Structures are given as C-alpha cells and as structure tokens.
C-alpha cells in the first residue's frame, strides 16, 4: 500500500493548528446565532420560526457536505451564503403571501432593489449589528430575567432546550415553557430592536448586562456538575459581553466593567477544582496557574471603565476580583479594601450572597469571631437556606475558633443541601478536618 498523499481538504480544516481549531470550536453554535439574527432582520421577528427552519436547514446541509468533503476554506461564509440563498428562495416564493420585515417590504418588492437589499443584510457589518439587535430584543421588559437568559442562550448561542435545562439543572418542560413564551413575546414585535440612543435603549442595555452577568455566574458558581458545560456558559457570556463592548453605543463604562469582571474571574477558572476533582479554596489555589493574559485584559478594561459618574455593581465586583488576582497570596491580600468594596456593593445591590462573601472577607481581615458575628447579622439569611456555603462558612469559622464540635454540626447541616458531588466531597472533607487540625478557608 503506497502512503496516501495528505488530504488537502482535511489539512485546511485546521487539524493541528491550535489558532485555527479554536475558531472552529462551537462554530455551528455561534453561526446559528448569527444566521438567526440576520434572517430575522430580513424576515421580520414575527417570522422567527421560519428563520429557525432556514438555519436548521443550512446547518444540516453543512453537516452532510462537510462530513464527506471536509471543511471549506471559510466555513462561516459558506454557512452564511447557504442561509442567504435559502432566504432568497423563501422571499421570492412567499413575498406575495407573507408579510416580511416592514422596513424592508418595499425594497423586497421590486427586482431592482431586491438583490442589493438581501446582500446588504448579509454583509458582515449588518450581521454584527443584527446580533446585537437580537440581544436587545431578547431582553424584552415583559419577560422575567430567567426567560431573557434562556432566550439569549437559545437564539444567540444555539443551545437546545435540553442543553439549557442541563446547564441550569432545570426540567426540560420548564425551559421549554420559558422559551415558548419568550418567542411569543418576541414575535409580537415585527422588527428587531433599533440600536439608537433612547431611554429604552439604556434600560435594555442594563437588562442585557444583568442577563450576561447571570449567565456568567451560572457557569462560574453554578450547580451543574459538568465542568465543560459551565465553562461554555462563561465563554458565551464573555463573547456576547465583548460584542457589546465593541459597539459604540453599548460600550458604556459599566459594560466594560462587566467584561473586566468576567476576564478576572475567568483567569482563575482553571484552579477552582484541583487535580483530584476537589473544590479548591482561594487560599489553596496555585496562583501561578492563573491566566495572566486574561488578568491583563481585565485590568485594562477596568481602567477604561473608570469614567463617568455612575458606579455600577460590575465596577465594584471587578475591583474585588482584581484585588484577589493581583495579591501574591491569600495572606497578602488587601482584605480591608475588599471589605470596604463589599460595603459599597451592599449599598448598590444588597443580596444575602454578597453579605455572605462580605462576612468571609471580614473573617480574613478581623478574625473568625468577627466573621461569625457578620454571618449571624445577615438580615435575610433565611434566603440562604438552600445555599450550602452559608453553613460551610459557619463551620469554617467555628473550626478556626477551635470549636470542633460546633463546626462539625454546621458542616453536617451543609451536606444534605450540597448541589453536586464536587460540593459533597468538599463538605465530607471538611467534616474529616474537624477531627484533625483546623484549616483556614475562603470561598471566593
């Protein structure tokens, strides 16, 4: 058998070139969001289902052709052209019978303007704007936050209903309901949200920031056991935040602060779980493993965000994250500064989880007794009832005070509310520690 010549198509598909590979990860997922956005602009939001069919069709074609022939030189362009050609067919066939985007209606009627209009809509610049406009459309004020997040994941990030349910430890039926209702609300407006300076724009921009923040947090702190899924949620949130930060109207200081916050947290992601799969405390994390490039990027964004007079919760959280990633060790962290940042955060957006983190910082700064006092002073701490890190923090501080029996009781109370095996193993390990020596901990 003579050695086969290396297959040119496969070599072009990126094979071992890491830079190329990276851009091909999640290609279908990202392109589906871009295609839906572009198609919805042309078809009108009320034809969202039609746009989804066209996307599904284009992805199926790509799968069938590429699996045998290999990837084309520019897979994104290939997909977009396929979607555009399908769109042209649909528009020509149905323009008498169906109402498409109202602002394009007249342009699509005449043969003179038909082709340039479609070409323009599928140009790279238009698509970027369409993606943003779709993001703004998804955060419709008539929808609750969790539906907005689910819609963004579904439409812009190509997550199926079951993938979202898996990521949020929710039932498929519950997510299905959220998405169906979300799409109904979306379809009731015919056109995508207009990106222009208006009061509505500002309100929706904050809603998007919030949705992306929640999405990121779900990935970073969430309860899903599959690390891969969680990293994906973080990456998607970052990708969309970067898209926002790249648009002249949306790149306000709080947007940059949000992206800074994501970069600074992501930098620590690889060390949150140690080699044996155990949750690793901030104090124990190998700081040399933190991603210095992301830290630098986060720091730059944080500097850029320090303008204007509005101090957002993202500014404060990014500043806290920055204190952590730039400290040489847990001991040499500026805990006083962190406590004061938490005070500010509590004033801007009070929540029991933030109060819990504040108490942990107080314990680091002023000792475990003060930490315990702060924990017990959390006003609505009953809302932390299902959150294992409240009893864990109580246990940890008791342990540091040398009261092993009390510590063990708190850890034992945390065990039944552990949300996944990783947390469970962590708590079991702390219970064992109660019988041996005390070990300090911090749960950021």
């Amino acid at each position, binding site marked *: 058998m003579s050695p086969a010549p290396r*297959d040119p*198509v496969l070599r072009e598909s990126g094979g071992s070139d890491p830079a190329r590979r990276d851009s091909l990860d999640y290609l279908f997922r990202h392109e589906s969001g871009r295609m839906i956005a572009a198609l919805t602009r042309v078809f009108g939001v009320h034809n969202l289902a039609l746009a989804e069919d066209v996307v599904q069709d284009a992805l199926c074609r790509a799968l069938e052709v*590429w699996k*045998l022939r290999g990837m084309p030189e520019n897979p994104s362009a290939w997909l977009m052209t396929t979607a555009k050609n399908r769109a042209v067919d649909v528009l020509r066939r149905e323009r008498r019978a169906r109402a498409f985007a109202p602002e394009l209606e007249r342009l699509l009627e005449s043969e003179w303007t038909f082709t340039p209009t479609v070409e323009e809509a599928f140009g790279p610049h238009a698509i970027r704007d369409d993606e943003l406009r779709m993001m703004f459309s998804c955060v419709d004020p008539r929808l609750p936050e969790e539906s907005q997040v689910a819609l963004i994941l579904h439409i812009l990030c190509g997550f199926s209903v079951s993938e979202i349910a898996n990521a949020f430890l929710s039932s498929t039926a519950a997510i299905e309901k959220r998405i169906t209702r979300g799409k109904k609300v979306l379809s009731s407006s015919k056109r995508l949200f207009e990106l222009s300076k208006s009061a509505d724009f500002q309100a929706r921009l904050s809603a998007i920031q919030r949705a992306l923040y929640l999405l990121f947090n779900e990935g970073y702190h969430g309860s899903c056991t599959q690390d891969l899924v969680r990293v994906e949620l973080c990456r998607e949130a970052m990708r969309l935040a970067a898209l926002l930060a790249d648009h002249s109207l949306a790149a306000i200081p709080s947007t940059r602060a949000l992206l800074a916050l994501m970069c600074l947290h992501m930098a620590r992601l690889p060390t949150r779980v140690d080699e044996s799969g155990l949750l690793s405390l901030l104090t124990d994390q190998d700081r040399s493993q933190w991603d210095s490039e992301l830290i630098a990027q986060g720091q730059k964004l944080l500097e850029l965000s320090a303008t204007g007079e509005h101090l957002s919760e993202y500014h404060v959280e990014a500043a806290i994250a920055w204190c952590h990633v730039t400290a040489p060790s847990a001991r040499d962290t500026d805990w006083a500064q962190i406590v004061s940042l938490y005070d500010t955060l509590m004033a801007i957006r009070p929540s029991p989880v933030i109060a819990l983190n504040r108490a942990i910082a107080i314990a680091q700064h002023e000792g475990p007794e003060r930490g315990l006092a702060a924990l017990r002073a959390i006003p609505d701490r009953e809302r932390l009832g299902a959150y294992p890190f409240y009893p864990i923090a109580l246990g940890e501080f008791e342990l540091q005070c040398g009261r092993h029996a009390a510590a063990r009781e708190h850890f034992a109370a945390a065990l039944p509310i552990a949300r996944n095996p990783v947390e469970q193993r962590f708590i079991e390990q702390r219970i064992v520690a109660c019988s041996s020596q005390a070990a300090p901990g911090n749960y950021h």
Partner: protein
Amino acid sequence: MSEYLFVYRGGNRAALSPEQMQQVMQKWMAWMQGLAEKGHLKDRGHPLDAAGKLVTGRSKNVTDGPYAEKDLVGGYSLIEARDLAQAAELSKGCPILERDGSVEVRPIMQM
C-alpha cells in the same frame, strides 16, 4: 488491493442541536482522516441531496422522492482494502452507525 464502494444510508438527523451537529461532523472528519492516513481512502465521494426523482419501468414513470429516511442514500465513498472482510471492518468506524444508519460495502468489479 481492491476497491469498495461505501454507500451511506439513513442516519437519524432529527432534532440535533447545533453543537450536536458539529460533534457528529467532527466524528465523520476524524473517521475519514483515519482512513486517509492509512491509505484506504481512494475517493472521498459525495453527499447526495435528499430531493430526487425515481424513474421506473418501461412506461418510464417518474415519481418524486421522498423515500423512507432509513433507505435514503446520503452519500458514498470509494475505499481501498485488502479484501471484503477488511473493507467491512473499516466501515465499522463510520459514525452513521451510531445514529441508526447503515453502510453498504460493495466490491467494485474490475476488468
């Protein structure tokens, strides 16, 4: 070394998410690459569109597809192998089998 035609049939493609589709595609690419590296891939072949016409009998009666999805030929490739047994063995790596599809392995008759 003899040549064999791999005919890919069926393969459930219902309700895959974009990510799942990409994973299926990547499995195919890895499989094809493996065949190519070992010198078994004579010709990558072509995918076939699901639309089609069926012309039958002396009356040359023309009917549209569709055919039942499980019978639908989705594509073909040309494989080089020592014998039919080896060709069949090679086909076992085809990802279509994981999705209820089949690979028909047929020796090409030579002059």
